[in-house]
Structures are given as structure tokens and as C-alpha cells.
């Protein structure tokens, strides 16, 4: 397993824990600080407020009012200014004494001093708030001069000018941390004449508070570090370590693409005994890996089995294919018909078959059949049906008889209830007379010479192996030279394209009539091509089997014509006239006639010039013309010196006019234009045979 670095679970979890502890401890510190501060503040405010109320209650309002009224006069102000300049209290004391107010002042001062001491207050003083100016009346900490001094009312206190109660506040100023409270002093008429201010020092409290905050912070940090270390260790122990162990071990199990690499020994085995989710996961993985190993072992077995079956099926398909005649042309020596057939099974082995064989020299038996169902069962049934039909046919039975007997044989013990549709025909090749029986098979298609392929419709009997004792009807037909026959299975007409359309008989007939003159092989290929084009990419559902027969009729030849003549060039015209006369009988096309003429001339002139030189002798020419098939076989014989003209090297026909050799051109033309040229020495004669189909 590759190193995960910052993405690893350990780092993620530890980071998360660190952040949570940090936030929690900080939050806790702040909360404790705030709760503590609020409680202390409240206490101080209450204490201060009570102190102010107590002082105010005991201060004589009338005395205070008298003193205040006096010091508010302009006269006092003048005295006070003078005293200020003289820097002495005496002038004021004198002035107050004169008016009998100094006692008031000293009484009040003594009283405030007493309260200040008793209440452990920082300041206790009498003041009058008047608009934005406050007039100091008595302050035991100040000199007499202080009395009557004006101060700016602190911002926010303007509204309290009526000397009323003011809630205590905690503030920080040049005097340090103070909790201040104001309470009105009431005269005998019940009027608020002044206020008593009490300031209690909170510096110690505030220092205490700072220390508390610092302690809390240090505690939080310590808590954070300790809890982080503990949780990280715990996480490592209970989660990340077993998880990475699991991850590493499972990677070890699954690091190969090779299925055979999953072994029982490789199932993970780790010291994980916990009962938590990780323990469950570990057990689940073990179980799962066990199943994978088991499954793969199973799969290997199944695959091997499948391969064996596949190989056997291939052999079966090969045997089946080998059972059908597959070498074309099957009867190369026969010119009276041409036959071709194909079978493309949909699965590995198919249920369709075609068959054809000579029953004797003159009778061709053809069968086209389709077993119901597909695959191995159908192909086994097909094998039996094919063999039985062939056996019966070779016993000399007629098609209806064959099907009757085969039907009874197949019905016997046909528990699988398979059946087979069969078209079976026996054709007498010398006359073209055919007998067919159709057991539920597709209609055959016939083409009369130079016509189009057309369906031959007649009633069919039921399929073979459906019911015992069925009598099959026979159907006579006549093939004339040039006629063709096409039989097929429903795989052709029921080939389906992706739109679920069937190929159908019309498309099949169109494919056949695309080039009706084509030989059976090309004809079947045309149909096959059309099916492929029609079907496109859709899968092949059914076997596609087709068989085509072109009937050329029995061989027919004109009577052989002979000419024995002196081998002299002067006789060339006579020889050519003889050849032309014979070829004209067979309606030989001009081109072939010209080619044959040139060949006859070249060979005859060769004999005339060289065979007997310097003497002369006879040349015997035999012309054998086939009416069916159309061909000319011309044999030249001479008794001259043994000479095989075919041994002569071919001239180089690519040379320029200057380099061209004159000799050898004649025999070269013969070789090139005739289908075959053969030489043999026979009974002291040179025999040269040329063959040309037309």
C-alpha cells in the first residue's frame, strides 16, 4: 500500500480531535471567565449601590441644600477663585464660617469620611448634577478648595441632572477600575438636592480576573495537549492501527490480476479481537475472502468443464459438418448437373441438414430437412433422420416410401417429441424426371430455362416423426436442360433483422432472380449476401441451409467428323473450312469460332512446316463437338518426328517490337485461347488435343 500522507485516516482523525479539543477548551475558558466576571460585577454593583443608598440616607438633605445654595452664589465663586490664587483653604473656611455653614461642611465631611472608612470605599463624595456641569460639594479626600469646583459631567450622565438615582457601573479611568453608584440626597421637603457618589476600587478584582483568565488559558492548553495525546493514542490503538493493518492485509490479498492467485493461505489473519465495528469488518472480510477463494476455485472447475464441453461440441459440430457432402463439385466427372449447398448453423451444432447422393448412375437423390429445436438434441435427431433416409433411399425406395418408413422408425421411442420437416426428391438424370415428397417442408423454388425463379406450391404432408403411419404423397416434376431447382430451410425466409422483420419468400426470390443465370454456388452466395445485408447486426436465430441444383441434361454430342489431308500450307483453307463447317453446326459464337480457327491454323501449319520436313506426310484431324455441354475437342495426329510443341518456352510478350522473337507465337496463342492443350506420343504418332468450351 502506498503512503497516504495527509489523506490518511490517522492524520484526518487526529487533526479533527485536536481542533475539537481546542475549540472546547477555549470555549470553556471564555465561558468560565464571563460567568465569573458577571457574577463579581453584579456583586460589586449591588454592594456599591447599597453603600450609596446607605450614605444618602444618613446625609442631612437640608444641610447639604444650604451648603449647596451658598457655594452656588457668585460671591462664593469669587472667594473660591481668590482662594485658588492664594492656594489656601482659609479664605473659604472663613467665608463659610461667617455664614455659619462651615460646621455643615465639616459635619458632612466627617460623616462621608466615616462611611468611606467603614464601607472600604475608594471615594465617597457629594455632588450636584446640573446639566453638563457637576458641582462638587464635599469630598473627604479633597481639600476645602475642592468644594464648589465644577466638573464636566461625564458623557452619558447628562440626563441625570435632576440628582436622581443612577445604577452602578463598572468603569476604568485615570482612577483605575471603579464600581460607581449614585444615590440622591433628599431634603426635609422630600426634594432631591444632591447625589452621593460611592466608588469602590475594583483594581484587585480586575487583576484577579486577569490571573483567572490566564490560568484558564493555560489550563485549556494543557487540557488540549493531554486530551489530544490521549485520544490520538486511543484512536491509534482502537481504530487507525487495526484499520491500516486491515487495509494493508486486504491489499496483499487482492494485488493480483491472476484469478489463480486467490488462495486460502492468503486470507487475512490479524490480531484483531475487538468486538466493535472494526472487529466485525475484519470478520466480514475474512468471510468474504473465504467465499472469493471458494468461488474462484469453483469457477476454475466450471470453466474447465465448460471448455471441455466446448471442445466436445466443436468436435460434434465437425462430425456433423463432415456428415454433409461438402466437397464441391461433388461429381466432377458429370456434366449433366451442377449442385451446391451450404449450411450455417445458428448454434455450434444445428438441426438442419441437406444431403445429396447418386443412387445409381442415373438417379440423384436430394434431401433438405429441418429438425424442430436447436442445438445438440436437434443435431442428434438430424443425424438419425439423415442416416435413415439415406439408407432407405439406397435400398431403392421411392420418396413417399422412404418418408413413410423413416417416419415410423423415428416415431418409435421419440420421447423428446422432436420432428423433422423433409423435402426429398429423386431425379432421373437421363430424362429429367423427378419425384418429390414434401413432409411439411418449405416450398421448393424452380426456374425454367431463361425464366425466373418461382415458388412451386402444392400441399404438404405433415412433418416426419409427428405421428406413426402417415402416408406421404408423391409429386412428379420434370426438369429440362437449363432448369434449376432451389430448396432451403426456414432459416432463410425467417431470418430476422433488428426491426423484427422477416426476410420472407419475396426477398428470397428477388435474391435468386438478381442473377438467375448464376451457377448454384454463386446463386446461394447471392441469397446469403442478401440475407446478411438484410439482417445486419441482428443475431442469427436459426440454421441457414440452402441447396441449389442446375440441371443441364444428359450429355449430347454431334457425330465426330474426321479429315485426313496432306500436311501442306496450301491445304490450310480446306482445313479451316472443315473446322468452320463443324463449328457452325453447334452454333458456336463468333469469338470462340475465331479463336478455334486460329488454333487450328497454327497447329496445322506447324505440322505442315516441320513434322515431315523436308518430306511431306498426312495430318489427321478429328473434330468432336458437344451439344451439351457446348464444347469442341479437336485432335491432330501426324506420323512425323516426335515433337511436343508445348515444351517450347513461351515468348516474352512484354518485349518491344525490335526485341521480339518471331517464333513460338503461334503455339502461344493456342495455349492462351484454348481451355486446354494436350500432347501425347501414341503409336508413333504426335497427338495434340485442344479443348474449348463455348
Amino acid at each position, binding site marked *: 500500500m502506498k503512503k497516504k500522507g495527509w489523506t490518511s485516516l490517522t492524520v484526518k482523525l487526529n487533526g479533527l480531535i485536536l481542533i475539537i479539543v481546542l475549540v472546547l477548551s477555549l470555549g470553556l475558558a471564555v465561558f468560565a471567565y464571563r460567568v465569573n466576571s458577571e457574577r463579581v460585577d453584579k456583586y460589586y454593583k449591588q454592594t456599591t449601590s447599597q453603600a450609596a443608598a446607605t450614605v444618602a440616607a444618613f446625609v442631612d438633605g437640608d444641610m447639604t441644600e444650604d451648603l449647596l445654595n451658598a457655594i452656588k452664589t457668585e460671591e462664593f465663586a469669587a472667594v473660591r477663585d481668590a482662594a485658588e490664587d492664594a492656594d489656601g483653604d482659609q479664605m473659604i473656611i472663613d467665608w463659610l464660617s461667617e455664614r455659619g455653614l462651615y460646621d455643615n461642611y465639616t459635619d458632612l465631611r466627617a460623616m462621608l469620611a466615616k462611611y468611606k472608612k467603614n464601607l472600604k470605599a475608594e471615594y465617597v463624595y457629594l455632588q450636584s448634577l446640573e446639566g453638563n456641569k457637576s458641582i462638587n460639594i464635599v469630598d473627604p479626600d479633597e481639600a476645602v478648595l475642592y468644594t464648589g469646583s465644577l466638573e464636566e459631567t461625564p458623557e452619558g450622565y447628562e440626563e441625570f441632572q435632576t440628582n436622581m438615582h443612577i445604577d452602578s457601573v463598572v468603569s476604568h479611568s485615570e482612577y483605575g477600575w471603579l464600581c460607581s453608584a449614585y444615590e440622591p440626597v433628599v431634603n426635609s421637603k422630600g426634594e432631591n438636592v444632591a447625589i452621593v457618589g460611592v466608588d469602590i476600587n475594583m483594581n484587585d478584582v480586575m487583576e484577579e480576573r486577569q490571573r483567572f483568565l490566564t490560568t484558564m488559558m493555560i489550563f485549556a492548553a494543557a487540557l488540549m495537549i493531554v486530551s489530544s495525546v490521549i485520544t490520538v493514542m486511543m484512536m491509534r490503538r482502537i481504530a487507525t492501527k487495526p484499520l491500516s493493518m486491515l487495509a494493508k492485509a486486504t491489499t496483499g490479498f487482492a494485488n493480483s490480476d491472476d484469478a489463480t492467485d486467490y488462495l486460502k493461505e492468503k486470507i487475512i489473519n490479524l490480531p484483531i479481537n475487538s468486538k466493535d465495528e472494526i472487529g466485525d469488518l475484519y470478520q466480514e472480510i475474512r468471510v468474504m475472502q473465504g467465499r472469493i477463494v471458494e468461488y474462484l476455485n469453483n469457477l476454475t472447475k466450471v470453466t474447465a468443464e465448460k471448455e471441455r464441453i466446448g471442445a466436445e461440441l466443436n468436435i460434434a459440430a465437425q462430425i456433423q459438418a463432415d456428415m454433409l457432402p461438402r466437397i464441391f463439385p461433388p461429381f466432377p466427372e458429370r456434366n449433366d448437373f451442377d449442385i451446391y449447398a451450404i449450411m450455417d448453423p445458428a448454434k455450434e451444432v444445428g438441426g438442419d441438414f441437406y444431403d445429396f447422393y447418386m443412387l445409381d448412375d442415373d438417379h440423384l437423390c436430394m434431401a433438405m430437412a429441418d429438425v424442430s429445436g436447436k442445438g445438440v438434441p436437434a443435431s442428434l435427431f438430424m443425424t438419425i433422420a439423415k442416416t435413415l433416409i439415406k439408407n432407405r433411399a439406397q435400398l431403392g425406395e421411392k420418396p413417399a416410401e422412404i418418408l413413410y418408413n423413416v417416419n415410423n422408425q423415428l416415431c418409435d421411442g421419440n420421447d423428446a417429441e422432436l420432428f423433422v420437416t423433409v423435402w426429398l426428391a429423386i431425379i432421373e438424370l437421363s430424362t429429367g424426371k423427378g419425384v418429390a415428397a414434401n413432409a411439411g417442408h418449405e416450398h421448393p423454388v424452380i426456374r425454367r430455362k431463361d425464366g425466373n425463379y418461382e415458388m412451386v406450391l402444392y400441399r404438404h404432408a405433415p412433418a416426419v416423426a409427428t405421428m406413426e403411419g402417415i402416408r406421404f404423397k408423391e409429386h412428379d416434376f420434370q426438369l429440362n436442360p437449363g432448369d434449376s431447382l432451389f430448396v432451403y430451410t426456414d432459416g432463410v425466409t425467417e431470418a430476422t433483422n433488428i426491426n423484427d422483420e422477416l426476410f420472407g419468400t419475396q426477398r428470397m426470390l428477388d435474391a435468386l432472380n438478381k442473377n438467375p443465370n448464376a451457377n448454384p454456388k454463386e446463386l446461394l452466395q447471392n441469397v446469403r449476401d442478401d440475407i446478411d445485408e438484410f439482417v445486419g447486426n441482428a443475431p442469427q436465430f436459426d440454421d441457414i441451409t440452402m441447396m441449389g441444383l442446375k440441371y443441364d441434361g444428359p450429355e449430347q454430342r454431334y457425330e465426330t467428323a474426321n479429315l485426313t489431308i496432306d500436311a501442306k500450307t496450301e491445304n490450310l483453307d480446306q482445313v479451316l473450312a472443315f473446322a468452320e463447317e463443324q463449328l457452325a453446326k453447334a452454333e458456336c459464337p463468333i469469338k470462340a469460332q475465331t479463336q478455334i480457327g486460329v488454333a487450328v491454323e497454327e497447329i496445322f501449319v506447324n505440322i505442315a512446316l516441320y513434322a515431315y520436313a523436308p518430306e511431306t506426310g498426312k495430318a489427321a484431324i478429328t473434330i468432336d463437338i458437344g451439344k451439351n455441354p457446348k464444347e469442341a475437342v479437336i485432335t491432330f495426329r501426324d506420323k512425323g518426328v516426335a515433337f511436343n510443341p508445348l515444351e517450347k518456352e513461351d515468348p516474352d510478350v512484354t518485349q518491344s517490337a525490335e526485341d521480339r522473337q518471331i517464333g513460338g507465337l503461334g503455339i*502461344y*496463342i493456342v495455349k492462351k485461347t484454348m481451355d486446354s492443350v494436350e500432347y501425347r506420343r501414341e503409336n508413333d504418332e504426335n497427338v495434340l488435343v485442344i479443348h474449348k468450351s463455348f
Partner: protein
Amino acid sequence: MTITKTLDGTNLTIALEGRLDTTTSPQLEGEMHPDIDSATEVTFDLENLAYISSAGLRVLLSAQKIMNKQGKMTIKNVCPEIMDIFDVTGFVDILNIEN
């Protein structure tokens, strides 16, 4: 075989009719000379020629050899049967055929 010769200055036109075979080739060879020796342009009109064998090809080849030295030779109106022989023997590459 009928041979029709037309001589227009040094332009020789030879029209052949019938069959050019072993028997008739010497006849063409004889008719060709001596006119071809001084000709600069020779045309063989094969419109009515139905047949040619290797003997005929020899005559055409010798005419071509002569004309290669002193001028131009053209074969025209070749029927498919004869064209086939020219093809097989490679004469299409030697002769200047105009169809």
C-alpha cells in the same frame, strides 16, 4: 484476302479485307514493299479483317519495325476478335492501335 493500298505522298494506307493467315500473309508482305520503304506514315485499316493468325502478326511486326525507324504506323478499326489476339500476344503494347 483483298488488299487495298492508297499512297498519298509518303502516307501509305493499307485496308485489309478477309483473313490474314498463313496463306495470305505472304501476299500482304509482297504488296507492302516497296511502298513502305519510303513511307513516313503507314495506316492499316482492319475494319473488314475478320481473322488474324501468328503469320499475320509477323507481317505487322516487321512493318512496325520498319516504321519505328522512319516514321509512324497506326492500326485502326480493330474488331474485338482480333483485338483479343493482340491482347494475348502483347501486341497491344507494340502496335499503335486507334479504335
